[in-house]
């Protein structure tokens, strides 16, 4: 199997398991504290990886602005909100909601990129929405 595919599988395991460990940690910690410590650890490992794979170049201002916006979206309104959501509703409910990311991506590609989604893409989006609806309308989902 190609190394890229093995790495993507490892990433899926890391994110899937990480969500559950975060939930477990939030039994005794605030989402803010968990998010900051997790972000710090991710930053440290990425710094090592950047140095090993080629090092830092001096970035342009436009690159810094773009990554600053990404940082805001990923960590403040992304992961922090997600961890707050996880604390309130549980992993079982919120994990499938993140599966809706491709739907937002399709919406962005259509509205900003002028792309036209294929029938298969729309069928996939329908399956995701149905799946999330199935999880959210589960009356037995309430936490013990």
């Amino acid at each position, binding site marked *: 199997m*190609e190394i890229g595919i093995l790495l*993507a599988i490892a990433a899926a395991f890391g994110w899937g398991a990480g969500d559950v460990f975060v*939930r477990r940690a939030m039994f005794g910690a605030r989402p803010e504290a968990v998010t900051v410590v997790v972000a710090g650890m*991710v930053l440290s490992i990425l710094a090592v990886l950047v140095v090993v794979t080629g090092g830092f170049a001096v970035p342009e201002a436009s690159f810094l602005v*773009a*990554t600053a*916006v990404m*940082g805001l979206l990923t960590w403040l309104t992304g992961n922090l909100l997600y961890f707050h959501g996880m604390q309130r509703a549980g992993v079982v409910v919120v994990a499938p909601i993140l599966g809706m990311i*491709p739907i937002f991506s399709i919406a962005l590609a259509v509205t900003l990129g002028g792309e036209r989604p294929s029938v298969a893409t729309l069928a996939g989006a329908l399956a995701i929405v149905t799946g999330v609806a199935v999880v959210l309308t589960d009356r037995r989902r309430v936490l013990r």
Partner: protein
Amino acid sequence: MSVLRAGSRTSAVTQGIVFAALAAASLSTAGFIAKQLVDDGTPGVVVAFYEVAFGLLFLTAARARSLRSGLRLERGVLRWIVIAGICFALATASFYTALASIDFSVGAPIVGVVPLVSYAFVLIVLRGHERLTVRSVLGATLVVGGVALIGAAN
């Protein structure tokens, strides 16, 4: 009294669902920007590094007061956070490294199985805290199938 408690729990769950949906929209927009930067030739790990660096800066600035009181963590809690941090760090590094050798359209559906991986770990780590029903597994499977279909279509 129990009606009130049940009501507040339902409200908390609804809030959690709204937060997660907003998070999905945010993460998706960030991914859209990341794709433009990587397509311009910047290595994925470099993009990820600056993204996390700015994210950490914003988090610390925006939630400084909350962090001052919340960063005193018990050893047991810290253990779970460290394990989670290692998982997220390895996942991020693995995924961005993977993108150097496979297309995003191949990697994204693979990462789409995250809800099912989480469910497997819920059975081990959150036994007695969260309930996994047949409907939740069916729903998560549909989500994973949908993500795979979109990945295959692209």
